[in-house]
């Protein structure tokens, strides 16, 4: 399995192009944390259970992602700064189809 390249714009507008492994059972929230793209403790607060919205991202490329689960939809319905292209990073597993994905981390709330 190969790595994929992700383009992640942080909350301050800075672009980070990073490599993420597809064979380590990681999700987008964990990639953001492992590269310390945002301050520790401000992303992935619930640990990836779709119970906070601290890893909310705007998906800005046309990648075919899996549909959001009911739990993710429910969380997004209560989150702030939600847009049409909002997703929870913790619910996006890193797979080969994500290569070239462009996302922006949503503001903290």
């Amino acid at each position, binding site marked *: 399995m190969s790595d994929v390249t992700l383009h992640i714009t942080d909350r301050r507008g800075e672009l980070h192009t990073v490599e993420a492994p597809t064979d380590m059972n990681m999700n987008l929230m964990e990639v953001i944390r492992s590269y310390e793209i945002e301050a520790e*403790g*401000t992303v992935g607060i619930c640990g990836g*259970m779709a*119970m*906070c919205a601290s890893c909310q991202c705007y998906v800005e490329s046309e990648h075919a992602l899996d549909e959001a689960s009911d739990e993710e*939809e*429910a969380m997004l*319905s*209560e989150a702030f700064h939600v847009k049409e292209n909002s997703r929870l990073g913790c619910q996006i597993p890193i797979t080969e189809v994500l290569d070239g994905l462009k996302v922006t981390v949503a503001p903290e*709330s």
Partner: protein
Amino acid sequence: MITTDILIIGAGPTGLFTVFEAGLLQLKCHLIDALGQPGGQCSELYPKKPIYDIPGYPEVLAGDLVDNLMKQIEPFQPGFTLGERAETIERTEDDFFIVTTNKGTKHKAKVVAIAGGLGSFEPRKPEIPGIEKFEDKGVAYLVKEPEQYRDKRVVIAGGGDSALDWSIFLAEIASEVHLVHRRNEFRGALDSVEKVIELKKKGKIKVYTPAEVNAIKGGDRLEAISLENVQTGLSTEIDCDAFIPLFGLSPKLGPLSDWGLEIEKNAIKVDNTLDYQTNIPGVYAIGDVNTYPGKLKLILCGFHEATLMCQSAYQRIHPDKKYVMKYTTVGGVSGFDGSKKEAPKAVVKTLD
């Protein structure tokens, strides 16, 4: 003034287990937590989620883990200050700490153990222009005393359990209840959703979906809110006495960050080579709230940290005493309530 041996800030699993380890050393504990019930995240965020990495439990629900911990520490009679947030800390001349909560409750102890997890859970506030101006003047993020809404016109925003449950509850006492949610679907226990539908049919709750409150109006006090249907873009104004946005809780380190503690990556730095003490002697940080090289935010690591911390706390409280660690299989557990648990004695008898 509440006095104790170890004052624990945070009643999550790590804080609760500290009571047990301290109790084995005959030290008394008191816990402060901003939430209204013990258990921290386990109770507040995911009580029904199974945890698989608690040693000795192939699977345990987070809520059950909390219940078990409460049972385990019961003999040690911990005190609780719940629903209050630890706000300030000061050191007295005779080397005690006094911790005061946001409601003014004072606690005195020789040792303070911060087991604050991700911080205290604070309500998430929606970004509506000028909302701060009306806080406590009609706008509240929590329902503290439902009676204050009697015969009032109330607007609730949110789509989760607390928005549903309070709409149902207040429908009985308020003169009007308006429920605003950004989506058409509500997320909540099935019977709450059904109850809201029933009350809506009876005209006791007016439901606005998919809509968002986007403006607040009033003079000295709240007088009206304005909401926008997010599909049609149409605005509606509702005259009201109270507006209660219920969008869940998010943890904030909050006042702890002003205690003079060394903080790194939103966590408190501790000495992991010895006893998880912070840069303030006598103040320890254990569980998810601390950081050190190689730190893992796991419940089982919090338990270990609590155990070592208690040994150090014992030395601080009783500098002249020598303590030898005793296995519970040998020493049993002697509660402060007079209870005694110990292994049954083996029968020694000749076999003829």
